[in-house]
């Protein structure tokens, strides 16, 4: 649809050199007046109805100027003689860069012009000049500080700072990702920076770490106020295509970071997220290059409303079969331990315990979690734990927790001999050693063990644990009053 320029309106009742006005338009499809909305590239993105009666100044022009959405926008300002100039935004920028009689323009209007033209040197001077017009020194100082900070962080016009402008298009170089991350730190979410970030994150061969970081910035930045709706939609379209492409699931490091970020944002359809997530987990390459991201994705899918329990359990079993030990197994078991009260997970953990190495911390973590879930207190399962306690896993700090749990199920008498034996063979510098000693001290009738405990008290003077143990020793000793008699 074509819109025809009809004039402009001003915020104040008269225009002075450097004043910006709002251009107004008519269209054959309506008898209302419209104002254009521009994007960061000066293009018209929409026309909105404007109520001109709210403006104290109205200017009409007979100049024939037709524009449409997508065209370069129209900018209207008063020149050095207060004559109203109507130009397309790019030409207006050129005119304003070299506006004559600059010093006669109000400093606050100078600011507006500098932000528009991106002239940082003039902007700096304009801020100082504007601060000089504030006749309250304390307020003037604060204003200057606030405005300088805003000028530094100005995001919507990258041309504002020459050094930043020079970055545009330079991200193809070998250190392009570093340059991009540096630019991001300086100016934050900006349409052009996000577009360049998309290229680096999703369509370059930079390092996985750098691409993952850029991808996360792009995804988070795409939701910022300073970013246009067009770029937000562009990022979404790119990410949707990228995530659903079968080949990229092999790009495990970046893929998992991207999926986890958008999953947290909750801006993509749940069902699609679930589909992409399971495709990734089923990809043999992603399984072989397991990362913490893989475990987190599995966890998110398990919590999903679209969960396919059978499919996820099958993925889980395959992962545990391929990674019996190591960091991936540790992470997985750590997660499964938290979910042990869910029946399908409990089954997986019990099966894994049968083949896992009881000498590892993840084995004891899994066993303890199953025991605490309350669904695995059968004789056979408890015996597994008792045997574990008797064997050579005394170095693990989980020993005390498993001991206490089984004591609770079976009663403490059954386990006292195991504890006594453990106290003699375990490293006495372990934190749990005095704890176990205090649990069983009164039940023991073993001179060697009593000596060991008293020796421990002597070698750990002044600690809370030795104090507690000493109390037990005193209580169980001969009644001195009676002895004196």
């Amino acid at each position, binding site marked *: 649809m074509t819109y025809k320029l009809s004039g402009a*309106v*001003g*915020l*104040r009742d008269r225009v002075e050199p450097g*004043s*910006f006005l*709002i251009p107004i338009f008519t269209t054959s499809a309506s008898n209302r007046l419209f*104002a*254009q*909305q*521009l*994007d*960061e590239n000066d293009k018209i993105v929409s026309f*909105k*109805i*404007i*109520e001109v009666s*709210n*403006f*104290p100044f109205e200017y009409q022009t007979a100049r024939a100027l037709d524009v449409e959405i997508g065209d370069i*926008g129209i900018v209207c300002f008063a020149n050095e003689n207060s004559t109203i100039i109507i130009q397309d935004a790019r030409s207006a920028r050129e005119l304003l860069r070299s506006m004559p009689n600059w010093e006669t323009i*109000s*400093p*606050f*209007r100078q*600011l*507006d*012009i500098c*932000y*528009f033209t991106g002239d940082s040197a003039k902007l700096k001077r304009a801020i100082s000049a*504007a601060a000089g*017009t*504030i*006749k*309250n020194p*304390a*307020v*003037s100082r*604060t*204003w200057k*500080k*606030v*405005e300088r*900070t*805003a000028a530094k*962080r*100005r*995001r*919507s*016009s990258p041309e504002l700072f020459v050094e930043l402008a020079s970055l545009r298009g330079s991200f193809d170089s070998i250190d392009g990702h570093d340059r991009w991350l540096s630019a991001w730190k300086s100016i934050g979410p900006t349409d052009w920076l996000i577009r360049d970030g998309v290229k680096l994150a999703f369509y370059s061969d930079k390092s996985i770490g750098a691409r993952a970081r850029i991808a996360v910035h792009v995804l988070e930045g795409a*939701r*910022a*106020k*300073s970013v*246009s*709706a067009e770029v937000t939609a562009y990022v979404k379209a790119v990410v949707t295509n990228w995530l659903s492409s079968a080949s990229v699931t092999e790009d495990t490091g970046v893929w998992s970071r991207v999926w986890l970020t958008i999953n*947290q*944002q*909750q*801006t993509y359809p749940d069902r699609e997220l679930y589909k992409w997530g399971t495709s990734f987990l089923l990809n043999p390459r992603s399984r072989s290059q397991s990362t913490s991201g893989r475990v987190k994705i599995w966890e998110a899918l398990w919590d999903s409303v679209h969960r396919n329990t059978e499919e996820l359990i099958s993925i889980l079993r395959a992962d545990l079969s391929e990674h019996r030990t190591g960091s991936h197994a540790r992470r997985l078991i750590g997660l499964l331990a938290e979910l042990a009260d869910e029946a399908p997970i409990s089954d997986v953990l019990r099966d894994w315990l049968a083949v896992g190495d009881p000498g590892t911390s993840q084995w004891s973590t899994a066993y303890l979690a199953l025991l605490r879930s309350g669904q695995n207190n059968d004789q056979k399962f408890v015996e597994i734990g008792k045997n574990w306690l008797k064997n050579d896993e005394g170095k693990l700090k989980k020993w005390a927790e498993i001991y206490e749990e089984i004591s609770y199920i079976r009663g403490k008498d059954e386990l006292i001999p195991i504890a006594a034996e453990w106290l003699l063979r375990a490293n006495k510098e372990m934190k749990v050693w005095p704890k176990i000693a205090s649990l069983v001290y009164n039940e023991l009738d073993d001179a060697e063990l009593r000596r060991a405990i008293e020796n421990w008290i002597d070698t750990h003077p002044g600690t809370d644990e030795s104090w507690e143990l000493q109390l037990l020793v005193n209580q169980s000793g001969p009644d001195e009053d009676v002895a004196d008699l």
Partner: protein
Amino acid sequence: MASRFRDFLSRNSVVPSNTLPLVHSTPSYRLDSILEGEEIVPTECDVFRTPLTYFFVGRPAYKVHPSSGEAEYWELPSCFIFEYDIVKAPEKIFPFDSGALHKGRMPNYVDLMDRDDFDVQGLPDAPARIIGAYFPDLRSYMKGKAKDTAHFQKDYTLGIFETQAKALHRMSIEKHNENIDDRRLSVEISTKETIDLKVSRPIAVVAPDEYFADAGFMNKVAVEWGALPIAYPISSLNTQAYYALIYERVESLYRDNLKLL
């Protein structure tokens, strides 16, 4: 009035945040009349059918017009920023823009609920409790970055009937609903009081640069009221750009000058 949302906010586990200034937003074309009368007078509210003045806690957010809908970009937002205790007698306190709810700009799951169940007027520290419940800190509140689901669920165990508390959290983390943007969880306070600017002076006044180019306007704000002028350029001709420019400056004021963030 009892409501489950109020009960939720009353829990001991909800730790009130510190306070932020109150922000009254208005179209720039109303500035001259406000400066002339030196007061902010309650105006008839289409939502509650009574004269009210509205404030948002901290955020220079623009209210949805109950009658006409979204503010247009040419209205050019202006704000008066006051000390938190400026409102002595709040009439209503909502965790979001009540006008947006009235206008049907909230997600369906909030729209379906009774508006008055969200009014927590009378609950001590209600605004600080809302922020403390849903945001990790004041900086996150200003940026609209609510606690993520894991964090929120860790902090509070919600019963199945605490639907308002849950719905607000869901809304606070949703980013795709452009209809509610930054007001989806901006604490709103309304009052029937008239704010006399000669007595209750603003901390800052936000307006386009063009207004502060006027010496009389500037003197009223900076000298007579001792308020900080927060000027923003209008040349971008884009509503979102205006908000970004305003937020940058207001955050800088809170962070660097008032040391609130």
